[in-house]
């Protein structure tokens, strides 16, 4: 199918479903929604789940490919699409479905951004612990589709742990829901788990309900520095074995720190762990005492403390770190690593070596106490490295992982994508996953060609 102009028939039908104001057909405007250089034939913004259903039914009937889209913060993930016929935007599905602060739950449309959710609940001193990168753009639906997370994952778990209900539309136009708006529910299959992290290959999420939490009244961040990775891991294990229960426990590699500081020439080679604690003065004092009495390696610097606006800024930067990587070097590759705790050290060591061997700088941040990290391979030279370098670096990293670990390349140059699978291997049975996909979308109308299989 042509990637430039939409056929008149397609446009007419989309317009009849959603109204002319909500269909984009202009090739120039559509270019900003290109995915791996594939420009959609049309973009459409349904105003209701029923309109989403009508668009999907239409697409299903005519066998055209639909790509659901939120704020485009994670749309770079996936194999290169064969075609994007309809970009289905969720930007008009933003209504609050339910929110009573006393219930500690909120239900909201998939197109609402994480920042919008925060603006709704923050006045009640509440928190949705979904601190994915670029919250002003990242939507609720997108964050669910890619199972996005940020530093708060350490204490609150992933979005699978606090999403209690979901509303979605299937390719044959069924308006369906699962779960509920209450915090505890075991009626029916847990379709939330299936849709979370399915990268828009099963159904279009139109809304979801979440647990929210009381926001801490006061926090402090302790920054500990170490000469090397083994010391970092030892410190992590010490924290995990202690009675302390920090909100965040975040690894920052030496080069990641330089990117955060916006100073890539800095010659500070230490690894850092950022430990964010919440609580009263007495609780924070306890953290201080514990950290001071632990026998840290001689090379470790005593933990520094930050608070107030500096602390808020620091965490904002850590959360948006993936963005900083591409600001610094747009030809970088960003890898999401999920692995058992004790596999972190060998994996990072292998990644560092793989970077050196293939002329990349290596950087990492992440939830070191939860086994969820983000790695970046940044080109050293201004010229884009050969595609094989990316492929080699990623396979060297994957080769060092245990079989239940995953290394998904979230973003990398288009040329490199042609040379390896961005998804890598999976510990989940492929036959079972295929059966599920076929049960939802046998013809792969949704995100055709982009997923693992």
């Amino acid at each position, binding site marked *: 199918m042509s990637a430039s102009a939409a056929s008149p028939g397609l446009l007419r039908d989309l317009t009849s479903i959603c109204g002319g104001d909500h269909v984009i057909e202009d090739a120039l405007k559509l270019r900003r929604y290109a995915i791996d250089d594939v420009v959609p034939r049309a973009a459409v913004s349904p105003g209701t789940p029923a309109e989403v259903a009508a668009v999907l039914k239409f697409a299903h009937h005519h066998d055209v490919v639909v790509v659901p889209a939120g704020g485009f913060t994670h749309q770079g993930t996936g194999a290169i699409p064969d075609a994007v016929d309809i970009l289905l935007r969720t930007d008009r599905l933003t209504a609050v479905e339910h929110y009573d602060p*006393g219930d500690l739950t909120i239900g909201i449309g998939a197109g609402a951004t994480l920042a919008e959710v925060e603006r709704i609940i923050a006045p009640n001193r509440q928190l949705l612990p979904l601190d994915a990168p670029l919250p002003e753009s990242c939507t609720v639906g997108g964050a669910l589709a890619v199972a996005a997370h940020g530093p708060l994952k350490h204490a609150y778990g992933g979005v699978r742990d606090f999403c209690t209900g979901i509303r979605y539309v299937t390719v044959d136009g069924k308006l369906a829901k699962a779960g509920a708006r209450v915090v505890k529910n075991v009626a029916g299959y847990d379709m939330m788990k299936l849709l979370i992290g399915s990268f828009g290959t099963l159904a279009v999420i139109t809304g979801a309900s979440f647990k929210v939490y009381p926001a801490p009244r006061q926090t402090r961040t302790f920054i500990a520095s170490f000469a090397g990775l083994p010391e970092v891991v030892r410190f992590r294990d010490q924290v995990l074995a202690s009675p302390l229960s920090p909100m965040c426990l975040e690894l920052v590699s030496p080069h990641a720190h330089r990117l955060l500081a916006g100073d890539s020439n800095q010659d500070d080679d230490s690894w850092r762990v950022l430990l964010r604690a919440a609580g009263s003065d007495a609780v924070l004092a306890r953290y201080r005492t514990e950290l001071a009495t632990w026998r840290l390696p001689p090379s470790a610097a005593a933990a520094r403390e930050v608070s107030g606006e500096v602390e808020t800024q620091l965490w904002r930067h850590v959360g948006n770190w993936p963005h900083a990587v591409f600001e610094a070097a747009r030809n970088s590759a960003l890898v999401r690593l999920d692995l058992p705790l004790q596999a972190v050290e060998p994996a990072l060591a292998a990644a560092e070596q793989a970077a050196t061997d293939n002329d990349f700088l290596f950087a990492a941040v992440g939830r070191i106490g939860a086994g969820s990290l983000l790695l970046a391979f940044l080109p050293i030279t201004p010229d884009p490295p050969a595609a094989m370098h990316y492929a080699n670096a990623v396979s060297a990293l994957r080769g060092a992982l245990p079989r239940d670990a995953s290394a998904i390349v979230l973003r990398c140059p288009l040329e490199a994508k042609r040379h390896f699978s961005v998804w890598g291997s999976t510990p989940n049975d492929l036959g079972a996953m295929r059966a599920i996909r076929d*049960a939802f979308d046998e013809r792969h109308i949704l995100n055709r060609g982009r997923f693992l299989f």
Partner: protein
Amino acid sequence: MSTLAKQLRRILASDAVLDRPEDVMLYEYDAGLSTGTPALVVFPETTQQVSQVVRLANQQGISLVPRGAGTGLSGGAIARDAGMVMVFSRMRRILEIDPANQRAVVQPGVVNLELSQAVAGYGLYFAPDPASQRVSTIGGNVAENSGGPHALAYGATVNHITGLEVVLPDGRIVEMGGKAGDSCGYDLTGLFVGSEGTLGIVTAITLKLTRVAEAVETLLAIFHSMDDAANTVMALTAEGITPVALEMLDGWTLRCVEEATHAGYPMDSGAVLLIELEGLREAVGEQAGAVREVCRRQNAREVRRAANQQERQLLWKGRKNAFASLGRLSPAYYTQDGVVPRTKIPAVLQFIAGVSKKYGLRIGNIFHAGDGNLHPCILFDIRDPDQVRRTHEAGREILQHCVGVGGTITGEHGVGMEKNELMPILFTDDDLAVMKRVHDAFNPRGVLNPHKLFPTPRSCRETNVVSRPAGGGGI
């Protein structure tokens, strides 16, 4: 049937197949009142054996129902169509304890509390704590996505499972997840937990171990009225206080419990809250102070504190044996498991009082107030058909009301064969149709746990089977 038994004895040990009526009768029940006599009961020892039995069941067209300790409350482990029950009492090994990764790998027959005891030396435990945890198996907890009082803070079973080995209904042995918290691809583990044995048979479970908190404080707040207690629950939320457990008992239930267990509950109060706090010493101390202050403002008559582990256990004993205590008063009882948004608790309790009056049935209230999971317990005499009918109607009316105010029909007991006909209260035909597609992707012929979870299609609804209220133990 004896040929089938013979074939099974070739796969399993000869003493691992029961087919005499007096033997299989023991597997008619779970902790509810639903019953169903299986034709055969088998006791596999390995995953391979499970797979072979599943293949055989397919060939022979006989259904198969996995069963742990039989403590379920929704009939999930009952052979509804006189098929085969597969019991996991011979697969109860802890395969691996991996404290450095905060994980353990267990067979499905491992008892919940035994795992926590096995890892206690590392300062770790398995957080899900259904009231049945002394006997219920982790395989059963996984199938039902069991909760418990501490689910309020630590989540239900699904939040603690990272990987499964499963025998699918076609006999294939598959892996999902592992020790990592997340993985590439669909979250099959999350889907299978809580699928009530309708998608596959779990044969190994990789789970998270949680660190035992440094300090714990258990408070008993005593109120003159249910309203004051219910308002306290909301006031605690408004103050941002996060107990790890927050349980409520009404005054009438309380007196039954006290007579049975001598837990030290006051005999003359309107309601009590059992409030538990955990964490750093400093944080627990402060929160306990804040809880006392909130209770005082909400007219608590008194707030008692468990001074030591013994007193703490006594307070919990009263709560965990609450349903059994009611059993002393009534020949049968029907425990509901509805959930409502927290702000709706006071109004829903009044509604339940109205239902009690309307149907002329005594209803006790024991529940997880912190997360809105109500367990109204309807007392009735099973020998009186009219009472049985009224109980059934009252239960349905309560659950319908729970859904009406934004809640659900089951928070932790599961749907099984007890509430499958109530699913349409909560879900539309389309909601259920999509779930059915997932079911059929794995279990198209219904060889595994048939006639559960989904409402019976209108066309083939049995006329001779009246679904009866379940009762018995409780959470």
